[in-house]
């Protein structure tokens, strides 16, 4: 079991309120991702759940029981840190065994769980090494192993992949997703990388300045962002946001069109501009379009190769059913 409920939780650091009153329920077995720009309070929120920071007011329930005043050790949660936070003076085996040693698990059971975790994480050959002798990816797997053997109610991940290089990051992302499918344990995952959020999450919580901007499945957020912030934050490349007369024509203060929802046509496009940088990825081509009179720059994503070069005139047609409309407060107009 691992349902986590936050009720009217706030956090102040001195006079500064970093988390205004906040309600959130993380269902048992769910993979929840907290995402937002740096300083949005996502790590703080995770640390409040972990118990590493005390909440200023409110209640935290774990499986319905009040955990607000319970120490991190007794909440039954396991955490994987950005810096891995392995014990440098212990072998990999001892690192993984540490939480079980603290819990007084008997030796045979410890060995059994270590073997199991090591096999699942490809660490069998490294059990007698020190963390300093491992690569970044291996260290992260040890940190995950240390979390698994506790058989926690929920896993907390604090930007676990941001110290890895790009290729490893994709691999570890898959491993963590697979781990979640296999264990079916609640996971709470903090990241500033919206690609990680989109690919891993059952539920994404978008945060800004301690406020929850929107909660939903990745595709909910992609299809119906509740406001301009979420619209701009979710999706890569970013959604084009256009204000002014063009928006007014759609009875909105701001309209948003994703780069993949703009078609490039030969002539007579609804919009036209001049190609700035063209990024040819093979599978896709990204055009940065200037001088459209709509916004400083529009990003357009076209499947496959399109032969337009720097300085060429480009004709564009936004797909009418894919235009998001927002009012002057930035909220979505249905």
């Amino acid at each position, binding site marked *: 079991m691992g349902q986590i409920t936050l009720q009217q939780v706030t956090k102040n650091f001195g006079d500064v309120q970093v988390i205004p009153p906040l309600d959130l329920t993380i269902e048992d077995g769910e993979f929840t991702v907290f995402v937002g720009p740096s300083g949005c309070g996502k790590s703080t929120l995770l640390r409040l759940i972990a118990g590493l920071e005390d909440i200023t007011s409110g209640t935290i329930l774990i499986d319905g029981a009040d955990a607000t005043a319970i120490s991190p050790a*007794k909440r039954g949660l396991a955490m994987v840190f950005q810096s891995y936070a*392995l*014990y440098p003076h212990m072998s990999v085996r001892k690192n993984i065994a540490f*939480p079980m040693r603290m819990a007084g698990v008997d030796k045979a059971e410890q060995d059994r769980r270590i073997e199991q975790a090591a096999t699942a994480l490809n660490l069998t050959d490294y059990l007698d090494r020190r963390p300093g002798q491992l690569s970044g990816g291996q260290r992260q797997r040890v940190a995950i192993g240390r979390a698994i053997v506790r058989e926690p109610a929920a896993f907390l991940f604090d930007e676990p992949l941001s110290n890895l290089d790009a290729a490893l990051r994709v691999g570890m992302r898959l491993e963590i997703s697979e781990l979640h499918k296999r264990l079916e344990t609640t996971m709470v995952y903090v990241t500033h990388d919206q690609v990680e959020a989109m690919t891993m999450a059952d539920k994404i919580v978008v945060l800004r300045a301690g406020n929850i901007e929107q909660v939903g499945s990745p595709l909910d957020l992609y299809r119906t962002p509740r406001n301009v912030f979420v619209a701009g934050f979710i999706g890569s490349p970013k959604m084009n946001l256009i204000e002014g007369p063009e928006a007014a024509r759609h009875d909105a203060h701001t309209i948003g069109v994703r780069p993949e929802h703009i078609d490039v046509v030969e002539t007579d496009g609804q919009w036209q501009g001049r190609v700035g940088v063209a990024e040819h990825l093979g599978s896709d081509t990204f055009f940065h379009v200037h001088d459209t009179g709509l916004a400083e720059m529009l990003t357009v994503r076209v499947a496959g190769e399109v032969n337009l070069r720097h300085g060429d005139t480009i004709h564009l047609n936004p797909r009418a059913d894919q235009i998001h409309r927002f009012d002057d407060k930035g909220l979505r107009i249905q």
Partner: protein
Amino acid sequence: MARNVTTQRKIVNTVLAWGIGLLIFFPILWTILTSFKSEATAIADPPVFLFFDWTLDNYRVVQERSDYMRFLWNSVIIAGGSTLLGIIVAVPAAWSMAFVPSARTKDILLWMLSTKMLPAVGVLYPIYLIFIKMGLLDSRVGLTVVLMLINLPIIIWMLYTYFREIPGEILEAARMDGASLKEEILYVLTPMAVPGIASTVLLNIILAWNEAFWTLNLTAAKAAPLTAFIASYSSPEGLFYAKLSAASTMAIAPILILGWFSQKQLVRGLTFGAVK
């Protein structure tokens, strides 16, 4: 060209370093040499450096006149005891300052250090009276406690500097892994800080071993350590340079040997954080 300059500089630096090193070491060398001279040779003018009749007489006389082992034992107990006590008090203190600092932590650290700026003689009178009242005069317990308190600011500062280098996330990981505060300090923090704690212990033993003001003022015979042993050979009995030197050599020998074998730890300890 560039390489020549480097080599030249290296030679100059080496010569300079050895020169300064020898200059600092010279008084100790001279003391050791004098301890092997007769009293007459010791005050000879011009002084003789190496070519004299080497004798062990001074050591024999010193050993006859006073019980070296008793002084040595007192020194060991007082220096070792005050260091052990100091570490027990300082580890939790440094832990709290390094990992759960409050707005006033820096002030407290500075205030503690400021107690070292006060001339010790300023508090001699009150402490002396306290010692009389509590019957601690000339007792090893009393000296151990006083030396512990005298050196505590330095121990806490050193440990604080080491602990600051340990990432807080590792301690948080221990907390998440179910370790109590005691287990966190015992199984995670202390093993990681062993090099730091070792050099702190070493330095403190040396400081306590060499401490002369309190040991001379608060002891008479029973609890007197080696500093008192040396002092007993100075002025009142006249100019016995050779015997004084022999006593000094015997007093500094243990700490010199300890320092020699722990050079690496000490240097690391004293320059910690300077290069990173």
